[in-house]
């Protein structure tokens, strides 16, 4: 079932993915690409949860359901974020974070 792949490989892969997401979050200046980096980060955390669940606690399903709930939260987060982005675009005609520097009050 585990086909001989050590748990550490999954964890290292998730770590690399997480920090690529962090790099994108720090360097990107476009709201949608920042959102995409956040999705990368959430996804890597999901891999971690599932690998831990399968390798360390195969008799339980906690990690499985945690990942399920993370996916649901990510979906709602993306929906709200994109609504906000579209609203910002309507007001400022740009979604570059450096150009959006004025609040309502």
């Amino acid at each position, binding site marked *: *079932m585990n*086909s001989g792949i050590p748990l*550490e*490989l999954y*964890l290292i*892969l998730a*770590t*690399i993915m*997480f*920090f*690529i*997401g*962090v*790099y*994108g979050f*720090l*360097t*990107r*200046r*476009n709201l*949608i*690409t920042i*959102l*995409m*980096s956040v*999705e*990368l980060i959430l*996804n890597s955390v*999901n*891999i971690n949860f*599932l690998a831990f669940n*399968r*390798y*360390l*606690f*195969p*008799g*339980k*399903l906690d990690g*499985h*359901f945690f*990942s*399920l*709930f993370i*996916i*649901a939260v*990510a*979906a*709602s987060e*993306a*929906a*709200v974020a*994109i*609504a906000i*982005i*579209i*609203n910002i*675009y*309507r007001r400022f005609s740009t*979604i570059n974070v450096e150009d959006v520097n004025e609040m309502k009050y």
Partner: protein
Amino acid sequence: MFAIFALVIVVFSVFTVTSRKILRAAVSLLMVLIATAGLYFLLNYQFLAAVQLTLYAGGIVVLIIFSILLTSQISHKFEAVEWKKSIFSALAAIAGAIVVITTILNHTFSADTAAASEVNMDVIGKSLLGTGRDGYVLPFEVISLLLVAAMIAAIVIAKKGSPQIEEKVKINDSE
């Protein structure tokens, strides 16, 4: 198989955060999510892999591509990232990755000896709605509430300008 998925994930993750064309970044994100679903299949969590494919790859990426089409010109190329910012961000990311990876490699994981439980729809449904020891009915209900709240919020936010805003715009125009 794992090597292929890992390679796809790493390469397309880098593409996602460095590509200067936004639609290409979105497609790379799609590839990453699909490869992650492959990893879930490899771990024998078929249900979650299906959820990943439908919700992430089918839902979120389509949403992102739609918003890209609404807000940007596709042919538009981002200006290159300032090298100073790029280097410092890369340094921060690499330092963090090194710390985490050394911690992982120095730690010995001890596996639970319990027999592997089969993850089929029967088990998933019973524990999602169970109220007993391994039941998840409370988070399940909370997440359904969250989804309703997010849906309403998205509609309210994206709704064409509230009357207050339009009034303000009119006042500004008349001034």
